[in-house]
C-alpha cells in the first residue's frame, strides 16, 4: 500500500502535490515564527518614545535593573504620580485604561516582551555595572512606541557578547599585560559557564 502511495507521488501531479504541501508547510512555519516575534498586544499601547522623549530615564520606571535581577514594571502609583497632574490624562481615550485601573485599584496586566525562557536566570545588575547601556540590548527605545525586541534574545547572542568582552585582544588588553590576560581568562571561564545562567 505504501509502495502505491510513493508510486503516486512519482507521477507529475503527485510531484506538484508534494511541492504545494512543502510550500504550505514552509510558509506556515515562516508565518508561525513571525508571529512569535511580533510584539504582543498590550493592555495600554504604551508610547515609550513619548516618555523617553520628555527625558525620563529608563531606570526611573525600571529601577530594579540597577539593584537586582529584574528591572520590574512601574507601579500605578508611579504612573499616577505624573499623570494625575496632567490635563490630558482625563481627556485622552488612550489613557482611559490607566484611569480606570487606578480608580478601580486594578493591576495593569502587562505582557512581557524582552524575556528569556524559564530555565534561564538573567540578572540585570552586573550588566549595568559593566557599563552596558540599556539600548545595547533593548535597542533605541526612544524610537519605539510599544516596545519590541531589536534582536532575538537567545543564548548564542548572550555568549557572543560574553566572549567578545573577555577576549584577550587589543581592545580588552591594550598593553598586553599578562595580569590582565590571566584575569580575562578567569572571567571568560566564568562568563561562559553553564551555571552562570542555568539553575
Amino acid at each position, binding site marked *: 500500500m505504501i509502495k502505491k502511495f510513493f508510486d503516486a507521488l512519482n507521477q507529475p501531479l503527485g510531484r506538484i502535490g508534494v511541492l504545494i504541501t512543502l510550500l504550505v508547510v514552509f510558509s506556515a512555519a515562516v508565518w508561525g515564527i513571525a508571529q512569535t516575534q511580533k510584539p504582543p498586544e498590550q493592555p495600554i499601547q504604551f508610547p515609550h518614545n513619548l516618555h523617553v522623549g520628555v527625558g525620563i530615564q529608563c531606570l526611573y520606571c525600571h529601577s530594579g535593573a540597577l539593584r537586582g*535581577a529584574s528591572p520590574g514594571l512601574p507601579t500605578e502609583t508611579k504612573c499616577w504620580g505624573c499623570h494625575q497632574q496632567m490635563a490630558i490624562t482625563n481627556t485622552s481615550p488612550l489613557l482611559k485604561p490607566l484611569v480606570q485601573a487606578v480608580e478601580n485599584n486594578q493591576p495593569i496586566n502587562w505582557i512581557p516582551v524582552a524575556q528569556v525562557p*524559564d*530555565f534561564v536566570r538573567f*540578572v540585570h545588575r*552586573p550588566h549595568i555595572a559593566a557599563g552596558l547601556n540599556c539600548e545595547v540590548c533593548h535597542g533605541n527605545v526612544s524610537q519605539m512606541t510599544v516596545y519590541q525586541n531589536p534582536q532575538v534574545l537567545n543564548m548564542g547572542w548572550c555568549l557572543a557578547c560574553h566572549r567578545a568582552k573577555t577576549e584577550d585582544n587589543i581592545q580588552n588588553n591594550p598593553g598586553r599585560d599578562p595580569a590582565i590576560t590571566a584575569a580575562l581568562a*578567569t572571567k571568560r*571561564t566564568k562568563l561562559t559557564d553553564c*551555571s552562570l545562567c*542555568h*539553575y
Partner: protein
Amino acid sequence: MATDLQLPVFTNNSENELAGRWGMVIDQDICTGCQACVAACAMENNIPFVGEADAGYGRTMHWIRIERFWQGTFPEVKMTPYQPVLCQQCHKAPCEPVCPVFASVHSVSEDINLQVYNRCVGTRYCANNCPYQVRVFNWRDYTDARQRPELVTLQNQLNPDVTVRRRGVMEKCTFCIQRIRHVEDTAQSEGRDVRDGEVVPACAQACPADAIVFGRVDDPTSKVSKAAITSRGSHMLEELGTLPRVTYLAGGSAQ
C-alpha cells in the same frame, strides 16, 4: 572548513583537582536526623512532592536524604550515625561523561557538577552511573497545576530564582548555586570579595545542630577547610576516585 564546536574539554589538571572550590563538611556525630535539611532543600529548590504511591516506587525527588542502617539484632542493636547524602559534587564525576547531550556538565568556574535542564532529554544514564544515587528524575509533570489542581495555591511558594523542572528531566543538588550567584553578585556590587560563611545553602541554614558547614575548600582559613582537618573525616566511596567535595566526619564514639 573546521568549525570550533566549543565542546567541553576534560582536562587533567591535578593542582586544580586538589584545590577544588566549594565544599561541605557534614558532622555525623551531631546530625540528629531531624530532616530539617530535607524540608529546607525542598522549599528552596522548588522540589515537587510525588505522593504516596510514587514515593513507594522510589520516585521521591529529595535532593538530600538522610541514610541510616541497622547493625545487629535486639538487644545489641545499633543504628549507624545519620548520614545526609546529597550530590557530592565530584571533581571527576561519573555522571558527566555518560550524558549524550552534555546536560550533566562540569562547571569549570565553580568546580561543581551541573544539570542543564533544557539540554536534558531524560536518558537517565547519569543516574545509573552515579555511585551515590543522588540524582532524581521527574517521572511525571509533578509541577504542572493543570494535572495536579492541588498545586494551584501551593505554587505561590515557588522560588523565582530556581527553574521549575518538567517531566523527563533529571535533577540533583546544586549546592544552592542560586545563592552562590546571589552572594557573588552582592559582593561584586559592594566591591568586595565574598566573605567566608556568606554563602549558606538551604540545608546548612536550617540545620538545628549546625552539622553542615559550607564554604570554599581552596581557602585553608575558611571554616569548612578547618572543619575538614580531623581524623574523623572521610569521603564517601573514596576508593572510586571521584574526588567528592563533601567530607563526612564520622559519628559514633570516634574521637
